């Protein structure tokens, strides 16, 4: 992906200074991992509220089965090229300045943070990836005194690099890709994925938001819901169905590669190099979900211990044969082997796995 991304930067002359990347490096991801501390930075999204009762009535009268919530008097997603271009302009003027820094932040304060809300417009092709990338670059080049390169590069990489690369994977690997289940996971998705009704605050918030808005940002998708589904050993078919249905931008080519591939590692490493899993520590560090949770992020076992902690170790222990030789994961097993509470962690995880519906 990194090679491809660099080629695309050169091919389309995006963020280039002759043959070299502007800013002297290709990738500024290291600067993009902050938690949001200052609420006053947040901006309201640019919305285009529309009356849509005629469509919701059509769906109801036709008996189309849907999930999620809608306010038929305020449908807020852009549905035309003009509206999409306005959302793009708003992103440049108001959100880009903080996009990269907080793109991985998790917060109960705001569902969109500094994300562009352009994924639906892009995926149904109301706007093109090249015009988005060029508009953002042009805006940045006129406002370099206010907007850092890391904000811009992180955004452009998602569209010029990752999005195109995922599509390439999809067409290279379908239809087999849809059958891959590297870990042989078989569990059913807990019912609370469809209601948000779980005591784990990060999941409850991320799922409720998804049901209300048909949207969650990539770290909510990857490191909250996706992380949990992988640690809990949910069948990738179940996970795919959920992601493909619930998000307004979800079309199979982009959904299945990101879900079954990147998030669930069910492809055994075609998309990514290692599974995206974490214990509670990552989620706590990225935001404020844990501070009001019924579970304790620091607690590994026993009453009130955050399920992410014991499930994290259970996942690694049960998949040792498949993961230990991965050079990016080997460290985890050296840590695990030195831990004295291995049995307690495994027992705790077994107990949570037996009661997934009640978590």
């Amino acid at each position, binding site marked *: 992906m990194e090679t491809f991304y660099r080629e695309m930067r050169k091919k389309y002359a995006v963020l280039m200074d002759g043959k070299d990347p502007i800013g002297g490096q290709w990738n500024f991801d290291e600067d993009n991992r902050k938690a949001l501390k200052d609420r006053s930075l947040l901006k309201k999204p640019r919305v285009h509220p529309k009356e849509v009762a005629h469509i919701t009535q059509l769906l109801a009268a036709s008996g189309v089965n849907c999930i999620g919530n809608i306010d038929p008097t305020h449908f807020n997603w852009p549905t035309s090229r003009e509206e999409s271009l306005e959302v793009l302009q708003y992103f440049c003027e108001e959100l880009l300045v903080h996009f990269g820094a907080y793109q991985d932040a998790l917060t109960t304060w705001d569902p969109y943070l500094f994300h562009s809300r352009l994924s639906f417009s892009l995926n149904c092709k109301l706007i093109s990836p090249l015009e988005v990338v060029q508009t953002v670059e042009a805006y940045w080049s006129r406002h370099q005194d206010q907007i850092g390169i890391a904000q811009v590069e992180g955004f452009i990489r998602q569209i010029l690099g990752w999005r195109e690369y995922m599509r390439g994977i999809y067409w290279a690997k379908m239809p087999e890709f849809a059958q891959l289940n590297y870990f042989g996971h078989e569990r059913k998705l807990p019912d609370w994925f469809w209601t948000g009704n779980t005591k784990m605050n990060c999941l409850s918030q991320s799922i409720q938001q998804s049901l209300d808005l048909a949207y969650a940002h990539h770290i909510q998708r990857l490191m909250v819901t996706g992380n949990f589904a992988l640690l809990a050993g949910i069948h990738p078919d179940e996970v795919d169905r959920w992601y493909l*249905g619930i998000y307004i931008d979800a079309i*199979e080519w982009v959904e299945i590669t990101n879900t079954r591939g990147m998030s669930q590692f069910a492809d055994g490493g075609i998309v990514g190099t290692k599974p995206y899993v974490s214990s509670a520590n990552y989620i706590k560090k990225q935001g404020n979900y844990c501070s009001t949770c019924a579970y304790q992020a620091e607690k590994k076992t026993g009453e009130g211990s955050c399920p992410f902690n014991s499930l994290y170790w259970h996942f690694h222990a049960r998949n040792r044969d498949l993961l230990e030789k991965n050079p990016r994961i080997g460290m985890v097993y050296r840590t695990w082997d030195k831990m004295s509470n291995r049995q307690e962690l495994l027992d705790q995880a077994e107990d949570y796995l037996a009661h997934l519906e009640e978590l």
Partner: protein
Amino acid sequence: MTKILRLVLGDQLNSQHSWFTLPNSSVTYLMLEMRQETDYVTHHIQKVVGFFLSMRQFAQDLQEQGHQFIYLTLDDPQNQQSLPAQVQALVRKEGFTRFEYQLPDEYRLDQQLQACCADLGIPCQAFDTEHFLSDREFLTNFFKGKKPTSWRPFTVK
């Protein structure tokens, strides 16, 4: 006389596509709200609403520019609710001599359209969506152990 039917899928709302440069009286565009698409997975209601609204707006805007459209809403009595059945029915009824579509992004629809074309009995042609910046197949050779084919740049307008 040439009578062309051109399919536009719900995620192909690219008004900048070369198809739409000038209205052409021998071309009719086809857009469909279908149970086939509302039901292949259980969608969020905002997703279905978002697609239908965007599709309707797209067809309306292009009709105002002089393009001819057949737009079937979900409750239209003529709606077959299935893509191949609808195309078959229209070709037979309206006497289209040619069927054209843009390459779908989904494998499911790609297979369905290829099968549909094989049965249609008139010339069929697929066009690029003129949206992405790389070729659909650019990684296919890479995974067969060959070097990736180059990602063809579109002309920058």
